[in-house]
Structure formats: C-alpha cells, structure tokens
C-alpha cells in the first residue's frame, strides 16, 4: 500500500468513525519493511524480514477518548473494529479538555525535503547486506587475538505513514534508515570478559561509515577496559563523552513534559523563564535538520514542526506541552516531545578537555540508574576512565554518579565542539565540576 492508498484508507476510516457516532476522529496508517542480519563466525546467525501494517483510530466523542490499534487492515474487519471502538468510548468519563486540536493550529505546515528518505533503497541487494555484516566481522576479528565473542550487524528499513484528522489535518511521511554495527567481547586473561560495541544509524545507504569504523572503535574500547576497577567515593570533576548514553539529558525530559507539570510531578514546575542551569547550556530542538534521525514536518497532534530553543544560556525557555495538556494547563501547546536536539557548541575537543583535567573521571558509558521527575534526584551507574593531570590513568567501573538534576546541570563548565551525529540527541562532550561518585 503506498501513501496515496493509505491516505484514502485513513479518510475512509475517519468517515466510518463519524458514521458510528464519533464527534471527531484521528487516524494514522503506517507500514514498514525491515531487514536485519547478524553475523557470527562468518555465518549468518540471524536473518529476519519484517513487513508490517497498522492503523490507529483515535475516537473523540463528547470529551470521551480512546485510542485503538489493529494490524488487520481489511475494510470489513476495520469497520467492525471502529464500530466497537466508538461504542466502547461512550463508557468513559467525560473530559472537557479532550478534543482534536483547534484546526487553526494546523496552519504553517511546511513542505520541505528533510533528506530522510533514500529513494534508492530498493537498489540495495540481499548480497550487499550480507557482505557488509560479514566484512565488519572479518575486519573486527583481525584486530586482536583476545576476542571471545563477536557479533556484527546490518539492518535497514523503509517506513511510511499518513495521518488524517476529521477537522482538516492531513500529513504523510516517508523515511529510510540504514544501520551497521558490531559487539565484541574480549578476554582479560583473568576470567573477565570486557565488551564494547559500535553502532551507527543513517538515513542514506551511502552515508554508512566505512567497514573499518565499527571494529576499530569497539575493539579499542574493549581493550581499554582490561583491569577496570572502582575507585574511592568522592566528588570528582566529570567529562561525559559525547557518545555515552544520554542518561542525564534524558533525566531532563520527564520534568519538562506537560503531563508531569500538570500532574504536579515535575521539579521544573514554576521555573519557566528562570535561569536554572549553567549558562553554558543552550538546547535547541530542530525538526528540520537534513537527514536528522528525528526530523519531521508535524508532530503526533498534527501540529506543524517548529525550530525552538528549550534552554538558552541556562534559562528555561519552553516546556514540552502537547495539545491535551495545554488545554488542561490553560496554556498554548508547544509540542509534546523533542525531535533532533542540538546544543550550542564550545571550541575544544574531548582530548583538549581531558588535558586540562586535574583529577576526575571521563565517563564513556552509563549503566542502569534512574531519576525522579518529582524531585530531580538521580543516580546512574557509570563506566569510564580515571584521569589525573590530563592523563588517562586507569579504567573504572562499578561506580554510581548521583545528585539532583538542577544542581548537576548548573555545574556544567564547558561544552565540546563535537556533536554526536549518529543520534537524534546530538550532544557534544561536556565537562562538569564536583560531581558525587560512589565507589569503594
């Protein structure tokens, strides 16, 4: 089913829903095709092909609301499905805030090419896919004789979706993605099996990094882990490498959300317009980034995308408020989630920042942990390297970093010049002062 056909089906479903008694309806129809290959010992360990369809029908009737998803897109099945969905919705409580967005908010939808769809997707052959996975494995294996486990990956997918609202919104999307990576475990000679991985996702096949990229990085990092140990608890300076999991950025997202604000469940409640973070922190949400992994022209509510500054030099400029919670809070909607998140960059690289570190920990990965949206308290496990006088001294693990996000993001003293581009969170390396680590 192409997007034109999906659009027809979505409109038909909207009509059905209204026919069965819904006041308003929103319908999303999506399909995707994905291929995944895993290679081990020069053999394909896993070959998976997946083609899937779905329709989600959101019913609005006198303030009552339900969302209903099915993967059976035959019209006779759908008709029954929608009829039941409408009937079911009538049991729910009447919520005066629940409706489709006022149609005036749909205005301003751009028609730009976001560079997220590789039209030559169909030209990638089955042999090419397998060859990439195999070549990554071969390349990685040749890098050290310490390898005890090695799996390489290749995957790609093509995605299409349409959205139709009964009060006038219509949108379509098409995108592709290509990923490759490797995961490697080595022996440390003492029964330990340090491991590391490398994984890259891009929108165009031609943009996949060369074969040698993955193994080079993963093996080097795994070898660096040999002899890792925890060190004494205390306050240390911390550098978070750009590609480390964005645990501490993620901890900001919950408290920024309209739902948590409205539910009195956010430590950032009442802080709009205030300087709550370091003036080194400027965060911009950019939905129009060419080739961005989260680029889009409209959001889940059908509101047109807009580039926006969320934090400017430490001042909280905007919350993430979707249509429903904007009604509940009595404010204008801003968009309920972020897309490509970018930062105001500094001038120095990771290496230069490490050189100036007297005593601290370079964090290269996070493991587990969580944060509390209500209070801002957080605690995460870390993997990294102890640094003294600008030199990497030894690998550390089995330690936690803890604090409160308000305080933590105020202790940011430098932002690097190196955004990590293989993610929608394009964070650079960052330097923080006096962070509480727990170890021995």
């Amino acid at each position, binding site marked *: 089913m192409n997007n034109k056909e999906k659009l027809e089906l979505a409109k038909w479903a909207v009509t059905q829903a209204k026919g069965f008694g819904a006041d308003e309806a929103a319908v999303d129809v999506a399909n995707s095709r994905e291929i995944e290959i895993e290679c081990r010992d020069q053999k394909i360990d896993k070959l998976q092909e997946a083609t899937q369809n779905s329709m989600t029908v959101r019913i609005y009737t006198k303030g009552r609301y339900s969302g209903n998803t099915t993967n*059976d897109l035959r019209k*006779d099945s759908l008709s*029954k*499905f929608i009829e039941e969905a409408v009937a079911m919705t009538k049991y729910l*409580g*009447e919520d005066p805030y629940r409706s489709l967005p006022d149609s005036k908010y749909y205005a301003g939808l751009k028609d730009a090419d976001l560079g997220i769809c590789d039209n030559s997707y169909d030209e990638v052959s089955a042999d090419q896919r397998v060859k990439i996975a195999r070549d990554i494995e071969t390349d990685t294996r040749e890098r050290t004789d310490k390898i005890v486990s090695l799996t390489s990956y290749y995957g790609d997918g093509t995605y299409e979706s349409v959205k139709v609202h009964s009060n006038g919104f219509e949108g379509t999307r098409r995108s592709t993605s290509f990923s490759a990576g490797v995961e490697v475990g080595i022996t440390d000679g003492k*029964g330990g*099996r340090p491991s590391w991985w490398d994984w890259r996702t891009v929108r165009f096949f031609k943009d996949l990094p060369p074969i040698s990229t993955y193994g080079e990085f993963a093996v080097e990092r795994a070898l660096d882990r040999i002899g890792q140990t925890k060190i004494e608890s205390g306050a240390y300076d911390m550098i978070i490498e750009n590609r480390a999991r964005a645990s501490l950025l993620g901890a900001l997202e919950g408290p920024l959300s309209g739902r948590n604000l409205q539910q009195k469940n956010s430590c950032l409640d009442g802080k709009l317009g205030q300087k709550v973070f370091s003036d080194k922190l400027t965060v911009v949400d950019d939905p129009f980034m060419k080739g961005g992994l989260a680029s889009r022209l409209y959001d889940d509510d059908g509101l047109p995308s807009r580039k926006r500054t969320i934090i400017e030099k430490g001042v909280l400029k905007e919350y993430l408020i979707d249509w429903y919670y904007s009604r509940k809070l009595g404010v204008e909607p801003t968009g309920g989630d972020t897309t490509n998140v970018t930062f105001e960059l500094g001038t120095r690289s990771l290496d230069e920042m490490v050189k100036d570190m007297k005593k601290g920990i370079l964090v290269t990965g996070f493991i587990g942990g969580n944060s509390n949206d209500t209070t801002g308290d957080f605690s995460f496990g870390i*993997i990294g390297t102890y640094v003294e006088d600008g030199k990497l001294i030894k690998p550390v693990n089995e330690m*936690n970093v803890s604090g409160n996000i308000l305080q933590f993001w105020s202790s940011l003293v430098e932002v690097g010049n190196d955004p990590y581009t293989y993610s929608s969170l394009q964070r650079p390396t960052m330097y923080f002062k006096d962070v509480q680590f727990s170890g021995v």
Partner: protein
Amino acid sequence: MTRREFVKTGAKGVALVSLPFIFKVDPLAALTTPPAGSLNLNDYYTHFGVDEAIIKQVMAAALEKGGDYCDIFFEHSISNSIGLEDNLVNRAYSTVDFGVGIRVVEGDQTGYSFTEEITPEAMKLAAKTAANIANQAKNAPPKELVLHDSKDLYPVEQSWEDVGFDEIIPKLQQINDKVLSLDPRVVNSQIWFTSGTQYVLLATSDGRIVCDYRPMSRTFAQCIAEQEGRREENYHMIGGRFGLELYTPENIDTLAKEAVRRTIDLFQAVPMAGGEMEVVLAPGKAGILLHEAIGHGMEADYNRKGESIFADKIGKPVAQPFVSIVDDGTIPSYRGSINIDDEGNDTHKTYLVRDGILETYLHDYISAKHYGVKPTGNGRRQSFRYMPIPRMTNTYMLNGPHTKEEIIASVKKGLYAESFTNGEVNIGPGDFTFYLKSGYMIEDGKLTTPVKDVNLIGNGPDVLTKMVMVANDLEVEQSGGTCGKGGQWAPVTDGLPTTKVSSITVGSNA
C-alpha cells in the same frame, strides 16, 4: 467453541474482534458466560483459518532449502489499558495484533519472517523468505503433528473477553478514592489498568502442535503527596495471569495502602552517604538483583556466543552452600509463568544454582541442541514478529538458614533495600545495577531512616559470593515486571528471601 465464540470469529471470518469490553453491550453475547480453558485444537484451527494440511504445506516451503527444523507460530492478542487521571477514568487504549511467524533453523542459524495475513499464499511466501537461511541438499520432511497437552497454570474465573468496561471503571475509581482518602498529604493519584489476552497456536516440524490461552492483568497505582512544599511520588502494583477475579476488595485495598505508605514514607527520607556497604535485600521485589546479577548471564544464548561471564563456570561453586537459585515457569497465575514456551516445550523449575554450585543454563531450542541437553522451556518471544530466544520466567532464591531478625541485627551500618524500579546488566563484564525507589538505613542492627532514589551497582559473580546470609521468608512478587532483551519484551517476576550481601556499591545522594 466458547470463550465468547473464541473472540467471536476466526481469520476467515469478518472481524478479528477486538475490544472485549464491548461484548457487554451486545445483547446476544451477554447471555452466555463461557467457562475458562474450554477451547480445543479445532477451535484454534478454525480461529486462525488453517488446518493440518495447510500447516504441512507451509512447513514444506520453509524447509525447501534444507533447513533442519522449522516452526510456525500463530498469534492473536488483544490488549487494553484504561487510565484514571484527575479523578476521571478518561482514556482507554486497545490493541489487536494478529499474525504468524515462521522460523527456519539450520545448525545455530535462524531465518525468520512473519506475515499479518494468515492465508496459505502469504504464509508460503513468508516461509520461502525464512528458508533462505538454509543451504544444504538434504531435506528433513516434517513429522506427523501430534497435539501436546500442556499444563493449566492460569485458569481464570472471569476472562477479559467477558468483562464489560463498565465493570472495570468502578474499580479504578475505588482505588483512586482510597489512595486520596488515606492521608491528607496525598494531592494526586494516577491509576493504570491493563489487561491482555494472547492466543497461541504453534506447530513444529518435529511433530508437535500446541495451543495456549494466556491471560494477564496488572494495575498500577501512583501516588503524589505534598508536605511543607516538598513533593514525593511512589507507586505500587498488583498483577498476574488473572481475569477480573484479581480485583478483590482486599487486593484493591492493599494496592492503595501500599502506594500511599511508600509515598508518605519518603518525606522522612534523608540523603545518605554512598559507597560500599552491607546491603540487606527485603524479601520479594529485591529479587531483581538475581535477575540482573545472574539470570541474564545464565541465558544460554549469551554463553553459546561466548559473551557471558558465566560461560565457563558450570559445575563450579559460585555462591555459599546455602544459596540455591531457580527459574520456575510453573507457578500458577504468576506473571512470568507459561504453560508451554513459545517453541512448544514444557516449562520447568530449573536450578541455576543448587547448593552454591552453578548447575545449568536457561535454554531455547537452538542452545539446547548446541549443548546437547533437554530444553528447559525458556524459549520465549514477545509476539509473532520475533524469533524465540532464551528468557527467564519467575526467578527466585530458595529459603536459607537464617532469619530476617538476625540478618538485620547483624548489620552495624548499611542499607535495607525494599522497592525497586529498574535494573540492567552488561553481560560480558557482569556489571549490573538496580535502582532503589525506597528503603531504610540500618544502624546498629535496626531499621532507621528511609532512603530513596539511589542506584546500586555490583558485579554478578562477585555479588553471588557475597550473599552471606539468607533467611527463610521467601517471597516472589506476583505482579513482577517486564524484561527487555534483544529488542523484545517479556513478562517476568523475581523474588528472594531476606538476604544479606556483604558489600555492594550504593550511590550517594548526600
């Protein structure tokens, strides 16, 4: 056929219906109340619109390039969630999923494909795609299909197909009213109810055919309270493989009381100094430590691939002689239980550690064959969209020789860890974490001040050896959690008796 005519129709029929709640407004449907567990193989054949001949044709296509084995996994699942916010039951979500997954195995290699359209043509096409993994001249013909009888671990009294929406809403209101009434400091409450029903029909080329009906429900009560400008949030949940009978007045009462108690307690919580310390794990939920510290490392795929730190430790002592850890998929009505795994193998109580010795991995079909052992019934998949992989079910430690009182009394300065949210493990290095939502400090052998929001981190094999005291008060949390692995989610539970770990690194929020 009963169970509301097996959700009304089959694949060949008009609708894959769908939203069980509505059946109550269908006057005809409302007249019948089908008994649970009454569907037979023919009902499943009818429902999925297949028969033995069609299945054999699909198998022949799957094995045409010479695979060793294939299986065909039909699934119809229906899930519903209903939410209460700001004192109003004001949102409901329903999902219907229907399809068939076809797997071909040659040696350790897997080809997988699925289709959402259960017609012979679509299934044969998917089978041919999966067949591409194989490349050998010989061709193992599928064996005669024989129905395999499985256990009946989750007989429900009132299955979700028979439960009207109007029966659930008042229960959510009751929970909410209770949460709000228990303490004047409670300012808000959110309640989430979910129910799920999964119908599975599985046929394997080695001649087994099984069917299973899997109910599930869980309700989560979140409480937000305020005291002198300070806000705290916590939650509690109940759940398992139940129908509506789970929601007794007693269970509703416990759910609300626990959610409030856990939240209000946090007002007394003070920041604590972190670092290595003695940690006493409360019975029940703290079993997440076992799940992360040893469970994942014992899943055979990680060992077959050489990733796990436990890969060369079978038969060796890994813990004190009073430590025994099992994975048990057979506890009636528990969230992690399954009558039969997603490869048609019976579930078992499997000892990972027996009397301190590492005993066996958790296997799926491929790893059992690789290691030349019997399957343990741990081959699970999230849905027909995924190939099965070894997964835990209900993982817990057996009772030990100590008592809770003597364990707490033995700690001079440490942490009593009571409730948790999430955990994670790095399989190779064995580092694992779990996040403490609430607990208490232990000072001079007594529980004192509440603590909260700290991460605990340790190394799997290391922590196993440091389990120095185990009490006789085993609890396994029935409502459990959801475990993510390889992009797939599976319902699991864990548990343990009160257990002392002599040293573990606790995050500091001082």
